[in-house]
């Protein structure tokens, strides 16, 4: 009798365990894992604190913000000089610089406005331009190089720049202003490429950062790409624009990036005007209370 009861309990237990109801209650959804653009799990090649030495005069590879994707977004301005009201982050504006800054209605920073009131060119999907590409949405950044040039491919907007490393000098006369300027690079040492850029757009369609800091056609930008070791890169960006600022200043200082797998497929990321239009119509304008209640 007792054996029969135990057997019955075993059968009942097995039946319960295998029932769809029980499975539904106990099954845990698989935790999401990071995927690349190809839908494959991300495998970081950075394996430990002791990386191999930096290869000589080589910054090629796919780099990403070492502290996570959010570190390069820099919504409130350059990481080391945000628009946050702190005195140490006040920039040395010229009168023209201050006047231009005030004409910019940014969505972020100390003078942020509502969505519907902004005149940020990027909100219309205009190019970020340079140096804003370094100072906003700095995400996966791929470098290709040969003996004559380094090409930088930015994930955001799928933009690219050419850095000439063939010994040429910057143009004496700018043939035509460019969104991403004219750039030359020289190796300061075997692990540091110093890039100078001039000839960028100096009109109202180009902002320095996400908070509307101004730029002019007189701007010169210095980037220092220092490969600390095989797996780590630091980027420093210095702004020199005498029309807008009374002295040069450093926007980001040794911004850390780490090497990604050479097999990593960078996810497409662009501002799409038609999608942006729908976004504003169905979301942004309502949030800003510009449509009828």
């Amino acid at each position, binding site marked *: 009798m007792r054996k029969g009861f135990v057997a019955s309990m075993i059968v009942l237990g097995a039946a319960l365990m295998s029932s769809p109801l029980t499975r539904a209650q106990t099954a845990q959804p698989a935790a999401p894992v990071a995927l690349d653009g190809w839908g494959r799990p991300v495998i970081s090649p950075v394996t430990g604190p002791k990386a191999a030495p930096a290869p000589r005069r080589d910054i090629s590879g796919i780099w990403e913000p070492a502290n996570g*994707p959010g570190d390069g977004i*820099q919504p409130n301005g350059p990481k080391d000089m945000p628009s946050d009201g702190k005195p140490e982050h006040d920039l040395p504006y010229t009168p023209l610089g201050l006047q231009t800054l005030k004409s910019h209605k940014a969505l972020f920073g100390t003078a942020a406005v509502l969505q519907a009131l902004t005149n940020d060119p990027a909100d219309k999907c205009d190019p970020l331009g340079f140096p804003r590409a370094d100072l906003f949405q700095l995400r996966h950044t791929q470098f290709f190089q040969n003996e004559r040039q380094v090409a930088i491919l930015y994930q955001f907007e799928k933009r690219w720049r050419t850095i000439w490393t063939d010994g040429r000098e910057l143009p004496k006369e700018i043939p035509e202003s460019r969104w991403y300027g004219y750039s030359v690079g020289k190796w300061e040492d075997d692990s540091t490429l110093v890039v100078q850029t001039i000839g960028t757009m100096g009109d109202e369609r180009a902002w320095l950062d996400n908070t509307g800091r101004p730029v002019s056609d007189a701007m010169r930008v210095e980037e220092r790409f220092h490969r600390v070791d095989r797996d780590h890169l630091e980027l420093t960006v210095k702004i020199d624009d005498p029309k807008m600022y009374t002295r040069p200043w450093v926007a980001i200082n040794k911004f850390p990036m780490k090497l990604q797998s050479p097999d990593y497929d960078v996810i497409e990321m662009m501002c799409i005007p038609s*999608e942006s239009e729908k976004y504003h119509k*169905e979301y*942004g304008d*309502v949030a800003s209370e510009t449509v009828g209640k």
Partner: protein
Amino acid sequence: MKVKFLTVFALAIGVWMVSVPLFAHHGNSAFDTGKRMTMKGTVTEWFWANPHCFLKFDVKDDSGNVVHWVAETTNGPDMIERGWSKQTFKGGDEITVTVEPVKNGRPVGRVLQVVLPNGQTLGMAYLKR
């Protein structure tokens, strides 16, 4: 407007940690910063797009009226980094959404967390890699 919602303070603490700076494109001025609303609703559209995705869902208020909510996330690539995808939602999905609403009282906000029909919770923290 009396929208039926559950305010879950314990959850809000966790959600708070991933708030404002992650929304990088369209500003913070419109939002009632720090306020949290948690609602049960039915998905009507998941707009996967650049520069921002948004989720549309219907919520019944206390009187049984349907309120059409719209809540944004960041862009698609950025959401992939957080474990979301274009296939995360389909029309008719019953979900629980936590949003930070706008100040103007419209049924608009930004998504902070979603509980899917299978019980999985998706938030705004980046996945470890």
